């Protein structure tokens, strides 16, 4: 694979758009030689990041947009997802593994991203997510 590749998309806050973009990104990563296990981890993280941006960030307001940009540097994948919402403090999200929070829809996505990515960070406002992962490359 070449040393550095990039992609960038801006989509409306619609879940169908999110699915379409995810397929494009995964297709690109597959073409670059990433293996199925890493692709699964990345797909889950991208899905969760985009779903949070669209549902919680932009509140499903189709007039608002979500920007997704990625840099693939060798075996390292870095992705930023930014919404036009008011942001949030990740520290305020309840722990979804506690029994009293099982019914709550928030928190599980962030936990999954933490589990499957090496790095997950939000900007101070909480409307821009950065996820990173070092992957194996399929021979």
């Amino acid at each position: 694979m070449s040393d550095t590749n990039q992609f960038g998309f801006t989509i409306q806050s619609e879940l169908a758009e999110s699915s379409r973009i995810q397929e494009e990104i995964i297709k690109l990563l597959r073409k670059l030689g990433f293996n199925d296990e890493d692709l699964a981890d990345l797909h889950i993280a991208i899905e969760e990041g985009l779903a949070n941006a669209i549902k919680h960030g932009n509140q499903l307001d189709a007039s608002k947009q979500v920007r997704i940009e990625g840099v693939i540097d060798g075996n390292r994948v870095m992705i930023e997802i930014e919404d036009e919402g008011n942001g949030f403090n990740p520290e305020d999200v309840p722990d979804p593994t506690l029994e009293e929070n099982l019914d709550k829809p928030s928190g599980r996505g962030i936990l999954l991203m933490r589990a499957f990515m090496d790095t997950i960070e939000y900007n101070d406002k909480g409307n821009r997510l950065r996820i990173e992962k070092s992957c194996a490359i399929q021979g």
Partner: protein
Amino acid sequence: MASAPTRIDIQQAEGITVATFKDRRLLDEVTIDLVGNELYALVDDLGCEKVILNFSDVEYMSSSALGKLIKFHKKILSVAGSLRLCGLKPELQKIFKVLALHKVFKIDKSLEKSLKKI
């Protein structure tokens, strides 16, 4: 059920319902909504009480899909039924463990084991 399920395959025998997911990925929100509605209909429309969910064809699923699963579990519990999951691939097992859902659901390695235990 208004129409035959399209996202899950349903087999019933001796009061036990085995629902096998047809999708390899439960990520897409439209698919997840359909799957959720088909699961809820098992209890609401068909009156199923003993249900085994077979994940043998599922590679991975999102937190949104897990939300549907948790709601379905509650529905089963509300009718004093029982629910077992089986056939989880390693990636799914990891997801359940990360979210501590392996403590919430009764999970078996195989459908045969679920059929014995339910």
